[in-house]
Each structure stands twice: as C-alpha cells, then as structure tokens.
C-alpha cells in the first residue's frame, strides 16, 4: 500500500473489505503451522484443489494445496522466473503453469513462502484435469512418498452406475491408505463432524458469493478470488465457518449501508476460468473504470458445487457424487447450462472469458459454451487470451483495447 493511494482516495478506502486483514492472518498461520509440522509431529498431505480433503482433516493431517501455491506465485509475480526454471528442467512451456512453477519450486525452495513443506503423502483427484495426474507422479518421484489417486471418471453426459461404484470403492481405499500412512485407525466419529463443518463452510461461502445478487454488488469476483483460499485449503474446519460467517456479516452490512464494490455500478459481468493472478488488480480497476463489476464467476463457486449431492448425515457415502460431478468434470453442454443459470441468478449483462493457455479442460469448449449462451441469452462476450501465472502470455495493450471495445458494445446496449 502506497501513501499516495491512501491520501488520494477516501472513497476507495471505504470500499475496502475489512475482513481481508483477518483472512491474511489465517492464511499466514496456516502456512506457519504447515511449515513447522516436523516440530509438531503432524503429517502433511499435498492434495489437488478438487480433492477430498475431509478425511485428511479427520485424521489430523495438514492438507497443502500446490494449486493455491501456484496462485500465490502468480499473484506475487514470481511466475515467469519459475516457469523459466521449469523449462530448464525440461518441461515444455505449453504445460499448466501451476504445475510448472510448483515443480520448479521443489528443488530450490522457491516462491513467495520459500517452498511448500515436504509432503508425507500425495492425494491426487483427477476431477479437474489429467494434468494433476502427471504433476503428482512427478512429485511422488521427487519426494519419494506414497501417492493416492482418486480416479473420478469424466461425466460427458452421465455419471454411470459403474463409475459410481468405482469411485465409492476408491473412497474406501483412500481411508485404508490414510490408515496405513498415518499408522492409526480412521476416526469415523470425527469424520462426521468434519463432514458437517465442510458443508457448513460451503453453504456460508455460497451465501457470501450470493450477496452479489444485490445490485449494486457489495463485492466482486476479484474479492471472491482472494477469499476463496479458505474454502479450498481449510474446508472442514471451524476456522472456515467462523471466517465466512463474519465475512457474510460484513457483506450484509455493506449492502445495508450502500457500499458497493464498484462505485456507480452500471454493468454486471460474469467471469469464466481461473483468474489472471498477476493482473487481478489491473483488471479490476480497468473494469471499474468502465463502471463494470464482475459480479460472479464460474471458478470460485466450484467449491460449493457438491452441496447438491452430499448428504449431511452420510458424508462418506455421498462423497462419490459430490466429488465426481463437479463443474470441470462435466460435459461442455452441462457447463453452458450452469453458466446460463449464473447469468440469470446474478443478472449479468455480459460475459468475460479467460482463455487460459494453462488449463485445457477449462478452456477448450469455451467457444461452444459461448455459442450456447448466445443462443439462449443475448449478451455480449469478451474472450481474453492469457495465462493464469505465466505473464509472458499476457499482452496488456491488446487486452486493454479489447476490453475497451467490449465495454463500448455494452454501453451502446444500455
């Protein structure tokens, strides 16, 4: 924070979300705890963002998320350097930049927090992509620790009975795996509580995201990108529940006192795909300068998509559905349906898609989603070509021109 900003704009100060400070503290403590696990004797598991974390919490294992690490690397603008390192290691520049930067961090303890703590085990769930499988194989070779793969068959048009059986069996295998690595019995009672907390956290997070249904929106997708970290990393703990409760209060409070994310909100946009981490502020200001607020996104809501399928009283048994039928594991037409629901719910009048070179399963199919959306809802769309972490794929002038042109179209429609 520079002085200039504080002096210049009290308006902006008012708009700042106060909970941010608390959130930063929680994340700092979380990483300190994880990095000192060798002193407390706790085990560390690296797990994919869409992976079933609840059993880990029930076993007192600290979950660590390389993808969250990737996002931090991107946000702290350390991506290019680490991407180049991974290229020196032989990894192609066309691979996912979360994976590349994480792999490059390992041997040098690189990145904003001096590397992630060494894992005792790796938990890979391929419900988001095939990249994580390769990435975790690489890390399993590097750290020489056990790897558990939860294979959640892709649902082009259905989650078949046989696929469901297969995932259910693997959840049992997962618990056995944990018992083996942790050398203790799985605690089913504790699991019940963790399951409840997880659902509570997800509901609260969804409630926070839903406050933007209000016009003007009290927060934007850029705020959601920041506050997302907890539902990803600490899902299943009381901390998440407490934090999102207070964040929800703050949002309601903002609505009552008329504080909006964007001053003079005139255009409400929907964002698709992973944030461009090194440019979130620039993009946020750019859109705000056009009186546009990104009121919702397909990314941060993905962590609540299992709410529909998971049964509170029977978390373990319904986990197969919850973890298989997530957004990225569905066919393009289903994704389009979801996008349309969001457009209606949040009353969006434009859509911004980040065509993300890093993430093929998220980006391939976007054009078809747009086609379907345009057929059903007549709203303008903008596609931004970039990468979530690797700044070399970001062309500011080009993107700026495209945003300006897109906003002209929107303004002309009003």
């Amino acid at each position, binding site marked *: 924070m520079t002085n200039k900003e504080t002096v210049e704009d009290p308006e902006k100060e008012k708009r700042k979300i106060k909970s941010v400070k608390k959130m930063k503290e929680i994340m700092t403590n979380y990483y300190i705890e994880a990095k000192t696990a060798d002193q407390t004797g706790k085990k560390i598991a690296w797990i994919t963002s869409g992976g079933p974390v609840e059993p880990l919490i029930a076993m007192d294992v600290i979950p660590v998320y390389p993808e969250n690490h990737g996002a931090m690397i991107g946000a702290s603008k350390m991506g290019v350097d680490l991407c180049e390192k991974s290229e020196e290691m032989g990894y192609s520049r066309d691979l996912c930049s979360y994976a590349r930067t994480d792999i490059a961090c390992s041997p040098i303890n690189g990145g904003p927090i001096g590397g992630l703590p060494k894992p005792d085990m790796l938990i890979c769930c391929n419900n988001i992509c095939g990249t994580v499988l390769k990435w975790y194989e690489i890390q399993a070779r590097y750290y020489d620790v056990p*790897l558990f793969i939860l294979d959640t068959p892709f649902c082009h048009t259905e989650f078949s009975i046989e696929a469901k059986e297969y995932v259910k069996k693997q959840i049992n295998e997962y618990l056995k795996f944990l018992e083996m690595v942790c050398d203790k019995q799985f605690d089913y009672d504790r699991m019940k509580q963790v399951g409840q907390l997880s659902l509570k956290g997800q509901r609260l997070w969804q409630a926070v995201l839903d406050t933007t249904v209000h016009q003007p929106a009290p927060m934007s997708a850029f705020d959601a990108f920041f506050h997302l970290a907890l539902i990803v990393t600490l899902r299943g703990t009381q901390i998440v529940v407490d934090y999102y409760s207070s964040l929800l209060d703050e949002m309601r409070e903002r609505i009552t006192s008329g504080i909006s994310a964007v001053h003079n909100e005139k255009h409400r946009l929907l964002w698709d795909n992973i944030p461009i981490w090194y440019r979130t502020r620039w993009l946020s200001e750019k859109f705000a300068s056009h009186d546009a607020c990104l009121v919702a996104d397909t990314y941060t809501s993905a962590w609540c998509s299992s709410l529909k399928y998971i049964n509170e009283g029977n978390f373990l048994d319904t986990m197969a559905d919850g973890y298989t039928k997530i957004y990225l594991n569905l066919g393009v037409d289903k994704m389009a349906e979801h996008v349309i629901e969001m457009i209606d719910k949040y009353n969006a009048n434009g859509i911004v898609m980040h065509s993300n070179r890093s993430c093929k399963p998220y980006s391939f199919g976007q054009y078809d989603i747009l086609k379907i959306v345009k057929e059903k809802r007549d709203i303008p769309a903008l596609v931004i070509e970039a990468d979530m972490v690797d700044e070399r794929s970001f062309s500011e002038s080009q993107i700026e021109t495209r945003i300006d042109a897109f906003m002209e179209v929107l303004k002309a429609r009003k």
Partner: protein
Amino acid sequence: MEILNLFREIANNPNDYVKTWKEENNGKVMGYFCSYTPEEILFAAGALPFRIFGTGGNISMADAHLQAYSCSLVRGALEDTLSGKLNFLDGIIFPHTCDSIQRLSDIWRLNIGFGFHMDVVLPVKLNTDSAREYMVNVLKKFKQRFEKELCCEITNENLKASVEKYNRIRTCLKKIYEIKRENPDIISSSNIYAVVKASMVMDRNVLLEKLPRVLDLLEDKKSEVKYTGKRLILAGGICNFPDIYQIIEDSGGAIVWDDTCTGSRYFEGTIDPNGDIIESIAQRYFERHVCPAKHSGLFNRGEHIVRIVKENNAQGVVFLFLKFCDPHAFDYPYIKEMLDKEGIPSMLFEMEDLLSSEGQLKTRCEAFLETL
C-alpha cells in the same frame, strides 16, 4: 513390392479407401481415436474400425471451436469432420485419455450431426483391482450399447473369432518389426509406418490375407549383411508424419523399435480367446505398457523405454511429440533423466505441423546422429 504399394496407397488416402469399402460392402464404419478403443468389439459386430489421424494442413473451421493451443491431432480431426471429409462415418468412439481429447469429444457431440457418438470412459489407473473391475464393466456396457446402435447381436463366437483375428494381426505386425530390427536395411521405416497405419483403417479380413505376404516378402530379402547405420528408438504419441522416417534414414539412422501409439503400443500384447473375452480384452490393457495419459506405477514408462533401447541394441532415442501434448511433455524430463543415467543419448522434437518443422528436424537429426 506391389504389396507394399497397396499399403502405401491406403495409408496415403484412407478416406477414399474406406468410402469405396463402404459402397462395396454396404458396411458400417466406426471412427475411433487412440489405441485404448476396444476395436475387437467393433470388428465382432461386422463394423470397420477406422482410426482418425487428422489430415493436418489448413485449419479454418476448427478455429471457431478450439483455441490455437490444442494439438494438431485434435484440431486436425475436428477440421476434417467439420469440413465434411469424414461424412462416411456411421459413428465415432472416444476413449477417455487426455484433457484435449476429452473436450474434443464434447465439441464433436455438440456439433457433428451425423453418426452416433460413444464415449468410453476407461479408468485412468491401470494397476488396481477396482479399476480393473470398472474397466470390465465399462467394456461390457460399451458392447451392449454398440449392439443397440447397430441393431445386431455380438455373440461370444463372434467375439472370440474377432480377438483371434486381432491376435494374428498383432503378431504379424510385431514380426515385421522384429525383422526390421534384425535387418534395418530391408524395409524402410516409412513403409513400415504405411503398413501399421493402413492396418488401423483397412478391412481387417483383407488385412489378414495381406500381412503374411509382407512377411514373406521380407523373409525372402533377409540377408546376413550387418547394418552399419545408427540404430534408434522412436518414442512419443501418435506419429502422422511419414516424412520423418525418411529424414531419419537420410541422416544415416534407422528406427529399430518404437514406443508410440501408432506403433508398438498398437500391436503389443495378445488377448486370451478362452474364458470371458471382455475380461481378456481388459487384461491386455492392464498388461500392455501404458500411454502417459494412464497411470500404472511411477517408473514404468521410463523403465520400458530403457529396456527397449537395450533389447534392440539401439544407440539413441528420438522423442517425437505433437506440440501442446500434455501427457508426453510431462513424462519427458524424467524419462530423459533415466536415459542419461544409462548413458543413452536422446533428442526431443516437438512438431506443430510438418511443413514448418521439416527443415529444422533435418538439421537437428543430422547433428544428433553425428554425436552417436
């Protein structure tokens, strides 16, 4: 040599071949991707399994659906179908492999109006009991659905006959490879490539008559003269660039074995025709060395490649990937490291399309072969 010309012709013009076949036989043509398609089931139903390679060249229509950072196989195949080149297909089959193919299947399903569409969502793990059970269930369901689509019944006898024929096809292809590695001079790699590629598209009954004739031809030519060029292994995914073989051979090398899905991954392993055939088909996938989009242990591909280098007395490995191919690009550094440890030199070539790559490949190849 006439027999080789037949294969070359089909390999160069698979679409024309299959159109004629369809007219003459009034048969069904099933397009498929990837060596994880249970072709034996298609063939048992009397259909012709037709592997899709993507003809390459100019992409215009596919651009409306796929970003430029998808591999040339995926974009090329979509271009072919959108531009009507594949209108003869009665159906299309997508086994689940990489993220790109996964989304191509969605895009195909939503945009291509002809033929029926089937996804075969196989497990990603090929080393656990629950995955095997799942695979068997998927294949059984696949068979049922296929019967329904074609309004036919696939009897056990049909299936048995089909896998027996496939076993013979695969054994023949393997023998051709074995002769080539003993006598790299007697048949060019581009001819071998033509034989393998044609094998994935032509009438399998005809193929079964023709393949032994290739073998006879090679047996006749066998000689005791020792090969003096450089012996190489080719490793990668789909290879749809016949000119590459020419380039390697012109630089003084020969491919004596490979680990590609248009090569050994296609023909390795036979299927037990006794017992539950669907289980036997699954068994082959579990035993065969994996493609990098599947998981079966952490070192298994690296070890396999080191092993084939040694078994075939090769001096080096040429990695050939399509640009934007994630599974192969992720595996490359560790396999290279394993090769380095064994003192086996390797070179990597990423192809976007042949036209822009040819000159570069030539220079790189020559330089690499000189170091061996």
